[in-house]
């Protein structure tokens, strides 16, 4: 078993690192303060071909695999989580349903421009009534002639104000729990779409999340993904593992950044007559971080590799996401402690890693849900015996 990255993968990693250091890093302070990613930066990311990394060349994509995509996510998050989160949305959740289930026309009108960075998309599932419990959603989609009429409210929608189209989860059968959910493609400029207030939050400051309202929004019936009603969860299942593995990659990027910076600080900071890295308590903190980073890296890239081999990855996606989430929280906690009072200083990066790491607690599912999923897989395994 060869666990090494190939030279091409290493080259890709360095190129993303260089890009991030050159174009993203110098603007982090400005983006944190303005709580916005400038359009020219998003355009530059488009020029690199990142948005189409996963998509077929037929649509203008790069034809890249999950290992490369995980590298992209890891490296971007290592630099700046807000940008990484927006890019991942554009590369995956915001566009994937069109890629998998869209008509040729929809791919031409939405996927191709998205890959070029001419149009942006985002996914709309969460509501005040439910994040984890998507079956509790109240947004409805009612068939009316050759249209659907969408009514409802979404919350925590990444970039709702700045995108051109949404993949919206809505119930075609309000009484059927999660089985009544369907997915729809909707442009932002449809009458009745209202972007609500921006959610003031502690993390990923430049990746704004918004409330989003649909007031009698009409869309053509062929905007229903999957061709027939009741397909929402079946379709969603295609993407859940991807979201887990690649969110995990984001976490790994933050973990490494926190580890590297606290290591460097520990080498310089003197207390009781020596650099604090000479003290065992600090050394062991760094050693524990390293254990968890190495373990997480293996789990995440193994899951990505399995996806590329077309192998089932239900358990691996869940376990790697669970693991890195707990690990990155421990890592940023210890890294912040190494910095002492400077751990709270807004001039340093470490407070941003500390905050942004919390994303992992609910992005791609809470820890409680992930453990439920793992437990269900175990139950299915023993059921088969």
């Amino acid at each position, binding site marked *: 078993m060869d666990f090494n990255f190939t030279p091409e993968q290493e080259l890709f990693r360095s190129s993303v690192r260089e890009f991030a250091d050159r174009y993203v890093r110098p603007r982090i302070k400005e983006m944190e303060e303005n709580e916005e990613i400038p359009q020219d930066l998003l355009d530059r990311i488009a020029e690199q071909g990142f948005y189409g990394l996963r998509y077929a060349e037929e649509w203008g994509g790069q034809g890249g695999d999950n290992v490369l995509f995980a590298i992209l996510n890891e490296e971007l998050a290592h630099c700046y989580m807000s940008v990484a989160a927006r890019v991942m949305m554009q590369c995956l959740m915001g566009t994937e349903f069109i890629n998998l289930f869209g008509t040729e026309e929809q791919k031409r009108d939405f996927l191709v421009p998205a890959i070029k960075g001419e149009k942006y998309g985002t996914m709309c599932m969460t509501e005040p009534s439910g994040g984890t419990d998507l079956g509790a959603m109240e947004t409805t989609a009612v068939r009316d002639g050759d249209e659907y009429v969408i009514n409802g409210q979404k919350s925590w929608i990444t970039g709702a104000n700045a995108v051109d189209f949404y993949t919206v989860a809505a119930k075609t059968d309000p009484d059927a729990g999660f089985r009544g959910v369907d997915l729809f493609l909707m442009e932002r400029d449809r009458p009745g779409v209202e972007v609500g207030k921006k959610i003031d939050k502690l993390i990923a400051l430049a990746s704004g999340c918004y409330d989003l309202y649909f007031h009698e929004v009409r869309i053509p019936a062929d905007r229903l993904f999957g061709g027939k009603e009741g397909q929402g969860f079946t379709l969603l299942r295609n993407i859940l593992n991807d979201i887990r593995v690649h969110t995990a990659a984001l976490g790994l990027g933050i973990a490494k950044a926190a580890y590297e910076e606290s290591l460097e600080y520990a080498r310089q900071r003197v207390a009781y007559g020596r650099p604090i890295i000479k003290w065992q308590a600090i050394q062991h903190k760094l050693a524990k971080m390293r254990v968890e980073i190495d373990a997480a890296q293996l789990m995440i890239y193994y899951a990505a590799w399995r996806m590329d081999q077309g192998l089932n990855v239900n358990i691996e996606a869940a376990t790697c996401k669970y693991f890195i989430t707990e690990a990155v*929280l421990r890592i940023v906690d210890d890294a912040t402690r190494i910095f002492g009072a400077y751990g*709270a200083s807004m001039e340093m990066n470490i407070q941003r890693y500390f905050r942004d790491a919390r994303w992992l607690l609910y992005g791609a599912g809470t820890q409680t849900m992930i453990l439920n999923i793992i437990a269900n897989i175990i139950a299915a395994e023993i059921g088969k015996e």
Partner: protein
Amino acid sequence: MGHCFSEQQELLRRSVAEFVDKEVVPAAARIDEEGQFPASLFQKAAELGYLGIRYPAEYGGSEGDNVMFTLMCEELARGSMSLAATVAMQCLMGTDFVYRFGTEEQKRRLLVPAIKGQKMGVIAMTEPDAGSDLGAIKTTARRDGDDYVLNGRKLWITNAALAAFFTVAAKTDPQAGFKGIDMFLVERETPGVSIGRDIAKMSVLGQGAGELTLDECRIPADHLFGQEGTGSRNLEALLAEIRIMMGSLSIGLGRAALDAAVRYSQERIQFGRPIASFQAVSHRLADMATQLEAARLMVYRAASLLDEGVRDMKLASMAKLFASEMANQVADGASRVFASYGLAAEYPVQRYFRDARFLLLGGGTSEVLRGIIARQMGL
């Protein structure tokens, strides 16, 4: 040995709790968002006698005991860490040296108005290169005739921008480590004192942390607290009380976070039932409550021993270590129960989570405290 608070202590707790519920809790989010010192609440605390709770009536104090001081800090911290930490500073380290070692004239001029909330007193120990390792401070105090002349730079000084007087740690013996430190009264208007800008930080936003520079700052010899050479010992004694106080702030924050999480878990419905009905949530809350209870017992035991005249540095250090770690774990747990709402500015949980980090620093980091406890154990 059962632990009951006396009637007087319970009365105080109830009255502080009422003040906190009526006036502090509703203002806490705004204090944090605006990053402004809560001046009117600080004034109200003065009027209620909180600032002088440790001091005798002779100076306008309310003559409470250490347990009462601890109860007060806990309740205030439940409402707003920014307010609580500033009140605690004013009650304890910001004024204690003036009380114990100051001249009557200094007490009249500074302690009495401090207790009334008219002058703010803070302690100034930390420097850019010396936090945990106070023995490494570079600020010096050289005797010159009837004066001392101080030179140095302090950083992370609580409310430096607002303080009227500072209790400054400076070395009378620059060759010595910690034992070379003495403590001095430095008043703001003294020539040679300059206050730098506050550090932008992530936590306790209603309390500033600034810079104090002393450049050939000349103070009368009677501004030395106690005898030359005794400063470090006096500071050590105070540290035990500082640690207990940090423990009490930790309990207040822990309670606030736990209460918020318990309420939310009962209200938030997912999968047709309150999330509290899932073991993953209820067991987590049970662990949080257990940790909080253990911390409370340690902190109050240390405080009541102090009231019996026993200054137990090992217990005080353990109480601070355990309680501050507990507060951080409880804030983390609460944040998880709230899921994404745990990070929304609209809810207080993100503030508890940020403010809890502050508790890991004052009075010693967890690593320093472990070292102290180990030494107390003879290791």
